[in-house]
């Protein structure tokens, strides 16, 4: 069993400084950095604070800077780091709360400003939905990559513009903006382009693509920002034609005009018939369905 030295760069909220704590922990194959932190909390130091929840890369809580790169602690195996020293820091470009816990207040504040919900003209239908909107697999493919985001916030840590500009919307918010822009069910395309077209919006990005590199879900925010710029360019050259908007699904055909009629009338279902069928195929042991 290997021993690995964990160096935690911990924020002390009372003294408002960082301090480093070192722990030596035994490592087994398959053990993640999050497992290491849990081991430290259980066996050595109970004051260590970190945020984690699902431990399988779904909730996006355990983003940390591990050996200088933003990663999810639960998806990073200690032995895969191939180093006897593991440095864990709170995520960059966030206000730290305590130890490794970062404050996501601004992150979600920015996400809110881009209106991350479907905006439609038929408001009444949205409040009291009667039917679903029709969307083809091709239209779904336009945005599904960007809908995979788990808001772990690693992209903000890798982004150079976010490092100094608190107004910059950031990779996640812009990516989310494109996700709703590209969704055929959304009708607020011009509003969304207006939000993107700011010095601190799309034009703050310099294509360092660190955001896409560190994304644990393969979302590629840099691509979304490029696509937004493409639409803005098209719009300024008066080439923007608008996108296809999903319509409400047509009402279902009445029951007696079932589309399945072509295959003959469906047999009426009764318990007796089912029991008979079951007996026929020797499924029932005690001659009873219930």
């Amino acid at each position: 069993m290997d021993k690995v030295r964990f160096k935690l760069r911990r924020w002390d909220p009372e003294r408002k400084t960082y301090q480093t704590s070192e722990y030596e922990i035994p490592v087994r194959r398959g053990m993640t950095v999050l497992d290491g932190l849990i081991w430290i909390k259980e066996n050595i130091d109970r004051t260590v604070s970190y945020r984690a929840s699902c431990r399988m890369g779904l909730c996006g809580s355990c983003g940390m800077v591990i050996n200088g790169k933003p990663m999810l602690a639960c998806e990073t195996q200690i032995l895969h780091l191939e180093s006897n020293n593991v440095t864990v820091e709170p995520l960059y470009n966030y206000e730290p709360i305590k130890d490794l816990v970062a404050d996501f207040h601004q992150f979600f504040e920015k996400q809110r400003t881009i209106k991350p919900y479907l905006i439609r003209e038929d408001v009444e239908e949205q409040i009291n939905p009667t039917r679903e909107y029709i969307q083809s697999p091709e239209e779904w493919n336009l945005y599904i990559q960007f809908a995979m985001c788990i808001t772990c916030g690693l992209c903000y840590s890798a982004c150079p513009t976010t490092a100094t500009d608190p107004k910059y919307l950031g990779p996640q918010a812009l990516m989310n903006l494109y996700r709703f822009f590209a969704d055929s069910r959304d009708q607020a395309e011009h509003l969304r382009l207006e939000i993107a077209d700011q010095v601190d919006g799309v034009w703050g990005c310099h294509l360092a693509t660190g955001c896409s590199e560190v994304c644990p879900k393969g979302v590629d925010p840099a691509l979304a920002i490029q696509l937004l710029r493409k639409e803005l360019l098209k719009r300024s050259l008066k080439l923007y034609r608008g996108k296809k908007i999903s319509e409400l699904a047509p009402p279902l055909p009445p029951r007696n005009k079932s589309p399945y009629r072509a295959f003959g009338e469906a047999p009426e279902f009764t318990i007796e018939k089912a029991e008979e069928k079951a007996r026929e195929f020797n499924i029932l042991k005690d001659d009873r369905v219930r």
Partner: protein
Amino acid sequence: MGEKEGRRGILGWIFPITNLERLLYTLHRITGIGLTLYLFIHIYETSMRMYGYETWTATAEFLENPLFHFGLLLVVLAALFHGANGIRLILQELGLIAPKPTQPVYPYRKYHRDRKIWMTTILMLILGAGVAVFALRDFLILLGVM
């Protein structure tokens, strides 16, 4: 410097270096600032021409110096990098060579460059390096090596 609300400040413009484009971004910014400084020096230096033949010749002789020649080489190399990378950025940033979004499949890829992006990046770097060969030979002559 500039560390507001836990932000990294100017240090965060350089680190973490996660991938190629991140490094090119840093180099682009550094060469850009350097070239701007050189531009001001260059404008000052050429403005000497206004004061007539003597001043101009004196300036030319003052610049006749291996140290300045080496500095000029650095400036030309920086300009070539900045230009070649800049053309890549124009094409890529405006989404002109952007790939179509695709549904990510596990295991998720790191930053995905499709063939168009790779070709542009490599082509531009080769183009920049190719012109740099011309520049290098010239400066070897200037330095009296060739």
